[in-house]
């Protein structure tokens, strides 16, 4: 979680300097969900992510430096600078992302169908936000996954806001989890600030998928600490709401659990934090020295042949 938080903070440094010249969407405050997925997937399992994808990629094991270099528009980036922060691809880990809301779920469906064809135990994970669940693509993919009983796990990060429109104003159902039975899927709503709750639900969904029992939806409640993108005036959420919700920091919550159970001491946690901050800071300094992609290469890669 600390790596994820510090990675996002490092990205923020590139915005005022224009090193990142376009939109940047960070997931600060939603770390417990990605952290809850760590440890249950292998490189043969697929993950399809969103415009807010950095922490999902970290959970899947994508190389941090290569990703940071992509976000900072360097030729050393994981996609050579051709993708940008919303379009991270790592085929060696079956990780991909899309900037189109809801579009990753049908792609994950394809990975899930591939697992069926190959007859292996692989699962496909689609991570989406609450905005995506109202797209047609989400319904089409869920229906087909249910009809074919495919190994698909959909993790919905419900941060309650689709840019400026609250979830409560845009969903016919009170929860997303309750929609699951209509697609022969298992649905559960969890506290997305609680890494253990997420991990337990995720593990169960992955086991269910691997056993051939079909798709699951995990609705993880959370809060987006920052605007939809960097530069978002974020006037749609009241100051009071933002202050109150940001006080429920998943990192602090995890820290308290570790201390309360005697799993770590304050000194140990501070030392870990110092070390992660130093590593990310060194990584950022190093990435900043990398070259930009050569402009003449812009017409490469349109076609493979």
């Amino acid at each position: 979680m600390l790596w994820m938080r510090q990675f996002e903070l490092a990205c923020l440094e590139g915005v005022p300097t224009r090193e990142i010249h376009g939109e940047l969407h960070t997931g600060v405050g939603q770390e417990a969900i990605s952290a809850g997925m760590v440890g249950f997937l292998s490189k043969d399992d697929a993950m399809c992510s969103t415009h807010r994808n950095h922490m999902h990629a970290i959970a899947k094991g994508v190389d941090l430096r290569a990703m940071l270099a992509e976000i900072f528009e360097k030729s050393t980036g994981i996609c050579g600078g051709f993708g940008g922060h919303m379009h991270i691809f790592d085929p060696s880990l079956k990780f991909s992302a899309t900037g189109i809301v809801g579009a990753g779920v049908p792609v994950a469906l394809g990975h899930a169908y591939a697992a069926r064809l190959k007859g292996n135990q692989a699962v496909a994970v689609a991570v989406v936000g609450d905005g995506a669940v109202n797209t047609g693509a989400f319904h089409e993919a869920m229906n087909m996954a249910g009809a074919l009983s495919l190994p698909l796990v959909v993790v919905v990060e419900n941060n309650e806001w689709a840019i400026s429109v609250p979830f409560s104003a845009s969903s016919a159902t009170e929860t997303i989890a309750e929609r699951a039975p209509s697609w022969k899927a298992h649905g559960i709503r969890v506290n997305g600030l609680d890494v253990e709750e997420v991990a337990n639900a995720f593990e169960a969904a992955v086991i269910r998928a691997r056993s051939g029992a079909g798709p699951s939806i995990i609705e993880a409640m959370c809060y987006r600490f920052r605007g939809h993108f960097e530069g978002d005036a974020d006037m749609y959420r009241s100051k009071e709401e933002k202050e109150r919700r940001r006080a429920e920091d998943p990192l602090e919550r995890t820290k308290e659990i570790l201390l309360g159970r005697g799993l770590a001491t304050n000194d140990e946690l501070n030392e870990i934090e110092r070390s992660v901050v130093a590593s990310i800071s060194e990584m950022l300094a190093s990435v900043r020295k990398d070259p930009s992609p050569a402009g003449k290469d812009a017409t490469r890669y349109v076609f493979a042949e």
Partner: protein
Amino acid sequence: MTVARNLNLSQCISEALHLEMERDPQVLVVGEDVGGQGGVFGATRGLQKKFGSGRVLDTPISESAITGMGVGLALEGYRPVLEIMFVDFIGVCLDQVYNAIAKNHYMSGGKVRMPIVIKTAGGCIGSGAQHSQCLWGLFAHLPGLKVVAPSNPYDAKGLMASAVESNDPVVFIEHKGLLLKRAEDFTFGADVPAERYTVPIGKANVVREGTDITLVTLSGTVAPSVLAAEEAMRKGISVEVIDLRSIVPLDIDTVATSVKKTGKILVVDEDYLSFGLSAEVVTRLLERKISITSVKRLAVPDVPIPGALSLEQEVVPNERSISAAIAETVGKA
């Protein structure tokens, strides 16, 4: 020349898919009614029986799921052939087509490939505005897609083989007016070998040689263009007819060679007129500073395809309007 086999064009496509699926176990066919039914035009007949319901998947009417699934399958190393029954239906899933299938190779810096065929039926058969479009100009405008539209059985089979083996996404538009036409009824490309062969994507075909005017077209308007050219010959006008076969890549070299000889160009396009194939062909010739004394574009004049035959005949190129356009191009109208 051997006697043409008793096949229609859709059977030639099905034969190509049989051979590709036999040759490469990674080839899949996914779409609506492609399995048990063998496709609404019969172009996937027999595939499910031979290769099973895993490799030949009947889907719900969920085009976003079909195309998105194709992306995931391609990321897993498969070569999916996705059938979108009519090209008009692409509207409900264009996102996956142009934001993922067309762009993933580029956005990943060449790391992932999208060897996907989007197989779809286009062209006019009297079904009105939502079931009679060609739309190849739309796909060609979006970078990252190859766009193929065959005009005859020989090309259909060979181009499909090339499309399936291509590492790039290919939109393969079959003309509905040709799909059920028997091979023996074609005056060109009627002889279809039973074995596998390929026709390269991006190489135009000079269907008929001529010296006075270059007529550039593809798909369903090649046959009426050839008939119109024969009629023009009787009036002393020699028309060279070029079947582009694909519009991405566009074989402008073959067109340029012809126009250097004739100096006159007529583009016959069953797609919409503006911002499309006809302007692209002419502009590329001008960019090459090729001397052109006469230009004419015959395409659907920026109206939806009407329902009634009397209205349709007015706007969709046919032998009569092509003949008139030939006469205008040579200044004998």
